[in-house]
């Protein structure tokens, strides 16, 4: 009660009304956070340590270990899925992200036709993931244009890749997903990076030009350092998704993840989906989630610290 008296004493009626309004405004999102984040995650963590009867057990973690070493109880080897997740992550963040930094910069420097190129770049990132995935899926089907093109380069006409599509053959499926990932990696951050680049004052570039700096010197010495906080944010988010992002494997493969396409993110969903048909015991996928979180957390924290140390505070 003292706190109410203190508030009454220190704040006017109008100020108190404003506070109340502000608190009520955030009440809903806070409640939502507590229920759908805190409670759900706490429940998931608890599940990881329980058997079907709610008793404490380490068995779920033993199952996770077996899944990485050999096979899990559903015949799935998670090691292969993990390797594929990393490959996709590396392609996206280590290869494509630096390229997108360059291409976006080139487009923001208003080269001839930059509007056209920019629109071509931005459209895919504006489209929903499902639409984009369906579009690609149709293009790489047995009679899709990309498959027909690949056939012209000597693809066996009786192979699964030729009759069913590039996503339905061991030899081509994962490469196709990597290629899609690469394309999305190139265009995905374009909108954010364009915004960051355009905030860099033109005076800096003009001054550099007077000093005789070339196109790429301006880019590496002025533009990228100026947008470094944005890059750090994007890379930190990327680090968070090192395990969980499934790159739409579920949609691409009609929920099967076969032909060597499954990723860890896909398997997390797949396991839970499969178990829903049984008696609803989710201890194993919960333990897998906890394990991945425990591994990811230091990676993200260390990565973020390194990124921040690498950067200088740039005031633009």
């Amino acid at each position, binding site marked *: 009660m003292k706190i109410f008296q203190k508030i009454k004493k220190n704040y006017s009626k109008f100020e108190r009304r404003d506070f109340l309004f502000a608190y009520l405004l955030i009440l809903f999102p806070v409640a939502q956070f507590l229920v759908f984040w805190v409670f759900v995650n706490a429940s998931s963590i608890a599940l990881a340590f329980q058997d079907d009867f709610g008793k404490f*057990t380490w068995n779920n973690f*033993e199952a996770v270990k077996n899944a990485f070493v050999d096979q899990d109880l559903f015949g799935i080897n998670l090691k292969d899925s993990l390797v594929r997740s990393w490959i996709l992550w590396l392609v996206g963040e280590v290869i494509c992200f630096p390229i997108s930094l360059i291409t976006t910069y080139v487009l923001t420097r208003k080269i001839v036709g930059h509007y056209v190129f920019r629109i071509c770049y931005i459209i895919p990132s504006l489209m929903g993931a499902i639409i984009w995935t369906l579009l690609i899926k149709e293009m790489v089907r047995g009679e899709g244009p990309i498959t027909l093109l690949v056939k012209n380069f000597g693809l066996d006409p009786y192979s699964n890749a030729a009759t069913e599509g590039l996503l339905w053959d061991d030899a081509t499926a994962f490469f196709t997903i990597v290629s899609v990932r690469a394309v999305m990696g190139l265009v995905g951050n374009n909108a954010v990076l364009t915004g960051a680049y355009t905030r860099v004052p033109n005076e800096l570039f003009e001054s550099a030009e007077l000093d005789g700096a070339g196109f790429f010197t301006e880019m590496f010495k002025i533009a990228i350092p100026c947008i470094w906080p944005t890059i750090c944010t994007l890379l930190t988010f990327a680090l968070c998704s090192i395990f969980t992002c499934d790159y739409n494997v579920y949609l691409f493969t009609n929920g099967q993840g076969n032909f060597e396409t499954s990723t860890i993110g896909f398997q997390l969903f797949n396991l839970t989906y499969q*178990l829903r*048909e049984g008696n609803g015991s989710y201890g194993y996928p919960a333990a897998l989630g906890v394990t991945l979180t425990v591994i990811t957390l230091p990676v993200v924290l260390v990565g973020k610290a390194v990124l921040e140390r690498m950067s200088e505070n740039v005031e633009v």
Partner: protein
Amino acid sequence: MKKGKGLALLLAAVSLTTCGFTACNNSEPVDGNTIVVKCVEAGFGTDWLYELKGKFEAVYAEEGYKVKIMTPSRQISGDTVIRDLYLGHQQTQTDLYITADIKTEKVGVNSDYQKVLAADLQEYVYSKPAISYNGEEEDVLISDKLSSDIVPFVTDSQGVMYGFNWVQSSGGLVVNTRKLAKYNLEIPKTTNELFDCFDKIYCGYNGVANSVKSGTYPMTYVTGTNGQGYTVCFLNTLMAQYDPEFYEQFWSFETAGDNGEVVAMTDNGYDVFNDETVLEMLKVAYRTFDKNIAAPGSISQELNQAQTKMMTDKNGAVFMLNGDWMLNEVKLTYEDELGDIDFVNYPVISALGVKLFGAGTTYNKSEAECDELLSYIIDLVDANKNIEDIIADVKENKGVDLAEADAKEVARARGVSYSRGVEHIGFMTADSPKKDIAALFLRMMASDDFGKSFSVLGNGSTPYYAQINTTSGYKFVENASKIVANQYFSLISAASQGYRKQLLKTNSIFMSQTHIPTYISSNSTASIYNREGGKNGSGLEVYTTVAKSLQKAEHTFVKNNWSQYKKQAGLE
């Protein structure tokens, strides 16, 4: 001040609009004589429901009973309805749910909400006769009209009847008879006859070129998440045809003890995967899902694309494992082609013929003779003949002294039907104050009159009216109803039960390969065909070899993990 007024004006406008829409939604009043019904929009449409409402209100006009049907939706199923039932009548105002994808035990004493969510229908519905469209009661009780096969699906674990099964719907083989007629082939009744059709369609026959040239392939199917269950229904049915007792054991890991008591196979449950029934099923599976003879796209397509392949010619197919609901699903797009398709029960596994009549039996027939005799008996079973007539017919026309037990075994196998209808259950809200009126509505749904009306408007059958449907105008619907009307008809379903349910967490047939047809069609190279529309010179043993290999791998996998399964389930 101006801003404040503007805001007030905006809020007033929003409120008025919202109230207007709300009013639209609840324009029909609900009084004490009106029951509120929510119905799932399933493969049978909802025209029948509105007709039933009309008939019901006409019969009970004097009492003033009315039915308010909320907008049917696909969402009125599964957990959504369970949640609604939990909230109860006070919050939902709903008295009756005609729904799908809910197991009755989920609303009984073992519901997730620790309380009974639906009304016990034994007293309200099952112990009373159905009510005809003229308001008169039928002569028999509804419980007597309901097949005993269905009872487990409408009762909870304590045996209380909370559910009302409202449609009989089965998985089976869809055949495009227009395409099949070009090859001058008959609809197959055994798996060997099916494979004979595969051979002739794929390699060319009766003046029609091979599949690569003609664009007509033997089979198409779905391996993705939407519709992949159709292929699994076939595999389950094969096992139930071959050995019904083993089928029960397979899905429960339980066996009968010396005194008939149920004994859980706690130490050797994995041995069910080593049974000959599983091997015979796998041999058929490998030959059926041989990707060389499937219409291009079968591995990667969705359900609608597969059904299109059945209805059209370009890279089309003659056979598809589907269900008696397919006609309704393709009706809008292929209205003019609906007469091309037919529906029959799954072919009977030919290995059963060998088991009953082959070497080592009193008949001592060759494999070809076994299949011929099996097929002949199936014809008689399909004609709904009695066992005595079947035996006499076989003696007269085939010169074989058929033992009664063997005749019954073939009839039983042919009558096995994989039911999807038992997934369509209705429930009455436990605390509904209008249970008496809702019960009258359900009793009318159990009538022969409704059965006839449903067969026309829904192109389907109800579990309370097993008659051959000659009114729909489609041979597909008529032949589908013949399966149900046959005296040997029996239902199976596939879900882990008993000890298996406690131990394993999925309803997959196998544990190491969760979807056998997908695994085979995606990975197997075993085939007697080449990709050019002919044969590659291999013998049928290629399918047997891979079937044995997969069976061994699965048995070893489950055996090796047996202890881990038990540990994870808290059973060790």
